[in-house]
């Protein structure tokens, strides 16, 4: 089981001080947060990709490469990489390069992006979101798996005798997750290829994501990759932690009340009741996170959103201390104890390489 954090990379005013970080400060904070994630023993850091203010991470592999140079163990990932508006050729090249630089500590999560205006900036149309995701990803897979590619499709210029460079590290393409909030087609896609499926599992009630995950598991089995309970599932989550529950509620409330996405709407009480958000002591975060397994089955990756709504860097780093030292070790132990033997871990470069080098059993 992998534990980590995912960041949207938003620049948001701290509602308690009125201070808005500069883009430069936010970018440096994201890096600091990633380094801290490794220091406190987390397994994964994932960054979003956005091309419009108030978000800063437009160039994920640049940032992840910079982080890779300063870390040793943490897995670098995305949440998400836009498979619709990025050229799949550039994704193939950028992430293969990152594999080499980071020693294989890379996977990525495909997403479509739901901001309409972004599509035309990159020559695309949001109404073609699903067909773009399907065609581009099919090409991306071939670019990583076939030395020389001849290809023709609907959305980009044809390729004749094209070789994507560098080739993936050890000829092992990065593991891919697919993220979706509401599209069964994307769950179907993940299941078809035997890839991972990630439900962002924040801001919305679990029931919605339960349907999607159940559908993905069913289709994973249908396509013959294993039993439904062996499908590779990742979940988001959101927490604000302090030693004492009432301190967490008191400190987080102004951030919640003014947050982008859900601020000025439901009460913090309703939102923690209705969505995966947990505000409280380490034990309360542990208890709520353990319910995720009951709702979704044994799963492979848990990412928390810890750095949004204008929380200052200092607070976020304190949150990571609490998460890494008091929450995750308990979750690791408890979830491992409950996990049946036949449920696999999330694939890594090492495991995929070992599987490739091992001759297939007849």
């Amino acid at each position: 089981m992998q534990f980590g954090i995912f960041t949207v990379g938003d620049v948001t005013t701290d509602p308690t001080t009125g201070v808005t970080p500069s883009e430069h400060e936010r970018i440096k904070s994201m890096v600091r947060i990633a380094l801290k994630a490794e220091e406190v023993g987390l397994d994964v850091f994932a960054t979003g990709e956005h091309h419009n203010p108030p978000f800063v991470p437009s160039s994920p592999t640049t940032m992840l490469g910079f982080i890779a140079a300063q870390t040793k163990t943490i897995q670098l990932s995305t949440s998400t990489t836009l498979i619709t508006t990025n050229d799949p050729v550039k994704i193939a090249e950028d992430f293969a390069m990152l594999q080499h630089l980071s020693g294989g500590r890379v996977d990525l999560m495909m997403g479509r992006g739901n901001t309409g205006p972004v599509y035309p900036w990159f020559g695309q149309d949001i109404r073609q979101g699903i067909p773009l995701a399907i065609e581009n990803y099919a090409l991306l897979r071939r670019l990583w798996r076939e030395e020389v590619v001849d290809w023709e499709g609907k959305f980009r210029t044809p390729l004749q005798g094209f070789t994507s460079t560098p080739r993936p590290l050890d000829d092992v393409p990065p593991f891919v997750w697919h993220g979706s909030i509401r599209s069964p087609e994307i769950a179907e896609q993940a299941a078809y290829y035997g890839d991972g499926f990630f439900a962002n599992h924040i801001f919305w009630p679990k029931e919605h994501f339960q349907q999607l995950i159940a559908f993905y598991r069913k289709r994973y089995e249908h396509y013959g990759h294993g039993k439904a309970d062996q499908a590779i599932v990742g979940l988001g989550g959101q927490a604000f932690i302090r030693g004492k529950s009432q301190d967490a509620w008191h400190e987080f409330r102004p951030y919640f009340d003014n947050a982008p996405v859900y601020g000025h709407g439901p009460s913090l009480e309703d939102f923690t009741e209705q969505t995966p958000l947990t505000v409280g002591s380490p034990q309360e975060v542990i208890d709520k996170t353990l319910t995720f397994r009951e709702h979704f089955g044994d799963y492979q990756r848990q990412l928390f959103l810890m750095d949004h709504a204008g929380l200052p860097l200092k607070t976020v780093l304190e949150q990571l201390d609490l998460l890494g030292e008091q929450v995750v070790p308990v979750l690791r132990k408890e979830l491992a104890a409950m996990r049946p033997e036949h449920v696999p871990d999330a694939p890594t470069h090492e495991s995929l390489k070992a599987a490739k080098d091992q001759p297939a059993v007849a």
Partner: protein
Amino acid sequence: MTARTIAVVTAGLSQPSSTRLLAERLAEATRAALAVDEVGVEVIELRDLAIDVTNTMLTGFPSPRLREVIDTVTRADALIAVTPVFTASYSGLFKSFFDVLDNDALDGKPVLLGATGGTERHSLVLDFALRPLFAYLRATPVATGVYAASSDWGSVSATGALQQRVERAAGELAALVSAAPEAKPEDEFTSVPFEQLLAGN
């Protein structure tokens, strides 16, 4: 034995409310006109859900109790929708409720439209405001809509005329409901097989 469910959405804000009163008359007349063994009528007062509806716009998901109401409306065999006239149209709360429904929630659903106002002068609100809204939602509004002004409640003869309109509209709704198969909930998550998606279908 057949059973039918009619969802009644009323957007009146005062209590007692003439909008609610009209909604109940429409529901009662429809129940009487339906020749089936069992008719379930679910009355939904939007006033009680005003904050939940607004929160849904802000968060993108309904609270559990609003979810329940949305499911009731979506699964019902027919809908009776009644709004007061505010500033020359349906009320904001009325529109907001239909804004938070899924786009296909009312596909093909028989609907009876009703409105209330202080004077008769707004009666065309049914045809100029409500009917286009439900046409967009691909519902099937019956030909007769019922508008009730203060004067319609004022005398026995006036109320008698209103009652005739109510019964005509209810009869039209009952005819549509009787002709339709019973509503069945759908499985939300289905996808075409991936080979088809890959082939561009």
